């Protein structure tokens, strides 16, 4: 049990490092090609209209997941813009992909807030939120690091993992796309994912 726990904790750091490098995750696979660390798992959240969405609803199609928050000044809007550009380049094929944005700031990012925010990005991006606990559980399942940082006057910002994660249609983790990744490379990864 103890051994298992330390393995999981170690995995967190490695997953973060791998996300940064993009290709670094190769080192985390066994000879059979199976990832050593489980990224992804059960979650139960709500879409922007309050309907429940779970990990099971994503099965059957490959999935792209990005965690962020709408108060994010730079990284999140840039990433969502990038995702929209990748989808445009994929053309109609992109319709075979689940594209999910999960907030790390459920206290401020309610369904209506995310809905208004996402209106400016590709309509195929679906926003998810939930209770503080439900979001924490989803972030944990996906090995997403995040932390609330207080600012003045009761405001706060959130430090967080910035990679986009790709999963196959069975929900198995495939690869990350690092922040600032070359668009050609990202489109290549998505094309491979869509088969």
């Amino acid at each position, binding site marked *: 049990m103890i051994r298992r726990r330390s393995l999981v904790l170690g995995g967190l750091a490695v997953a*973060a490092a791998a996300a*940064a490098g993009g290709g670094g995750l190769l080192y985390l696979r066994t000879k059979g090609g199976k990832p050593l660390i489980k990224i992804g798992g059960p979650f139960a959240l709500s879409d922007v209209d309050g309907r429940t969405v779970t990990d099971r609803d994503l099965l059957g199609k490959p999935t792209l997941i990005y965690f962020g928050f*709408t*108060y994010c*000044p*730079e990284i999140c809007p*840039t990433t969502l813009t990038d995702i929209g550009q990748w989808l445009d380049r994929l053309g109609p094929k992109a319709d075979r992909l689940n594209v999910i944005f999960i907030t790390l700031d459920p206290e401020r990012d309610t369904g209506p807030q995310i809905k208004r*925010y996402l209106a400016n990005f590709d309509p195929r991006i679906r926003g998810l939120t939930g209770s503080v606990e439900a979001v924490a559980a989803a972030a944990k399942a996906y090995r997403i690091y995040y932390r609330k940082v207080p600012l003045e006057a009761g405001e706060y910002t959130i430090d967080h993992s910035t990679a986009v994660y790709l999963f196959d249609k069975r929900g198995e983790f495939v690869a990350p796309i690092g922040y600032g990744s*070359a668009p050609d490379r990202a489109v290549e990864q998505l094309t491979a994912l869509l088969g």
Partner: protein
Amino acid sequence: MKRMIYSATAACLIATSALAAASTPRIEAGWVRATPPAARAGAAYFNLTNPGKAPDRLLGGSAPGVERVEVHEMSMTDGIMRMRPLTDGLVIPAGGTVALKPGGYHIMLIGLARPLKAGESLPLTLRFEKAGKVTVTLPIKTPPAAGAH
């Protein structure tokens, strides 16, 4: 007669800016990131030059339609984005230039009353420890994609 007034005004302006230039921080290549609707935070960037003989410190500022203007630093380590307010301000060395740019130091615009729309501009008043208040009007722009560099 008209021409004389013009040239007198021009001379006057030059004299004022020459005086001001001795101590007032210079704000160049500035821009404000356009925000999606419903975004509550934005950012401004520029090159900040201190032509003075003593270091100065950028402490914060104000802008219309923005609840709070803070100086922040962003960093990216192992794929994790971190952002911290510079509570003691940002030091600009005497005769030096500090760049506020995406991925690094920036002016954080918190509590937007309305979206910052590309093509419009934002009057931003910056507060310095020594130079006091300096106002610049910055264009609002849509930034290039992250992978485009």
